[in-house]
């Protein structure tokens, strides 16, 4: 890759930047742990898509029924 090209410069910016991080390494570790907790644990085990699980493909029918019945 041509060293003067935009892509090489962009790659170099990120590559050198990540390599020379000190405090950033700790922060990235925290971000990754947080993302794993959020997406692999919370989303999977605690936050399912309620309508997908209960509406059997007819979300508008389910919500209509809920909203009409709850007013009675």
């Amino acid at each position, binding site marked *: 890759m041509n060293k003067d090209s935009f892509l090489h410069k962009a790659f170099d910016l990120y590559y*050198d930047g990540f390599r020379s991080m000190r405090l950033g390494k700790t922060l990235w570790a925290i971000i990754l742990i947080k993302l794993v907790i*959020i997406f692999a644990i919370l989303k999977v085990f605690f936050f399912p898509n*309620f309508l997908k699980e209960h509406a059997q493909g007819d979300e*508008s029918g389910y919500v209509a029924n809920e909203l009409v019945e*709850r007013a009675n």
Partner: protein
Amino acid sequence: MFNNLLLDIDAGTIDWSRAQFALTAIYHWLFVPLTLGLAVIMGIVETIYYRTKEQFWKDAAIFWQKLFGINFAMGVATGIILEFEFGTNWSNYSWFVGDIFGAPLAVEGIVAFFMESTFVAVMYFGWKKVSPGFHLASTWLTGLGATISAWWILVANAWMQYPVGCAFNPDTMRNEMVSFAEVALSPFAISKFCHTVTSSWIIGAVFCVGVCSWYMLKRREPRLSIESMKIGAAVGLVASLLAAATGHKSAQDVAAVQPMKLAAMEALYDGGNGIGLKVIEGIEVPNALSFMATNDFEGYVPGVNDILNGYTKPDGQVEPSVEEKIERGRQAIAALAAYRKAKHEGAEDSTINQQLSLLNENMPYFGYGYIRNKEEVVPPIAVNFWAFRVMVGLGGLFILFFAIVLAGAYGWPKALWRDRSITGLPNWHYWIAIALIPLAYIASESGWLVAEFGRQPWTIQDMLPTWAAVSDLQSSSVMITFFLFLILFTTMLAVEINIMLKQIKKGPQL
């Protein structure tokens, strides 16, 4: 089809879902304002470096950018949990709001990803890779990206407070956007954005002055602390005055579209013309509430009882009583049911259209169809009353604080500062500045308490109360995740504070 549904929603499910959402939002809001506020501070510091080319200012900019980075990293993705909660705990609401809520959030996600990930990288990695001008632009664009993100989130929030630019489709059961411009440029959203962002700058400024005060307390970093304090105090003073002005505009918006919230903020039961603003119960500033709400010292402000029983606005327009709104809400819901039944059974077009017309006519009061007792539309008054006073009181204190700090940092008036410097004051001065950091957060969170408690019971103003919006979940499962979050958020906050304090103790590498 859904005969086995448990349609009597457990009150615990509503309360725990609300508590969980509040906890997540409060936690998320610890990071956002400091990001927005420190973005201005670090931008100004780097601008001075760009102009002077003095190494001191470059080191100072790197120092404030590090603190910005710690806060930014800890705040990353904390808002995503709110979106999970919409889909799980508030599924009726999520479906009902349709693309109106989704569009601003999608734009926010794209803007946040592209602007912030690009320019944050240049800001941290690019000191030796890009020109000083490009680096400076990246620093400001990092802050601008975060501010634009806040714009879209606040557009979504403002729509819930004042739903505009939409039409309800009874076939899809969703509100569909009819005017993106009306949603994105809603006057309510603009006021909310201006007030929220300027109040966030206050937090950044208080944090900056607090950190500088700690160095002064420790007799460290004399130049960094005094120069940064000047910038922090100047930003803080301007931001405090702007927050007061934008708050005044926000109050007028609330008076116009959420009069019950304003009445709750003031514990005003019986309204009228020329109403005073309560400092606390029993002490009031004459005519000030009328001015705050209408820009007219003799303006009319309705109280809780007026809103419940109906009143006539100054322009002669009659606001129906809550009982009348409940009746019309019930008609809307009955028309919705009849419309869907008629469509399902293949009834004649005239029957379908008749029900559709009845629904559209009463749709502005749809949510009132869920109200059993008119008192249910009154938000918790004590919370609103005191949260509003905490926000305004601390806001006033910050104006005074920043004015004093700014004068002190510049040694003005000279007669007072002839034999002393702001870096050599008795320690209690610095402790006060440090103690104001948590108070700035309390002021900011109090503002959100007013905004969100004040619109109870509505998830969408006049359209959907909490008990119609919530999913039919077991309250125990929501309670478990609430405590899980409490532990998780407390741990993460402790980690952030720990890293932040370590970095402050380490100081800049001048």
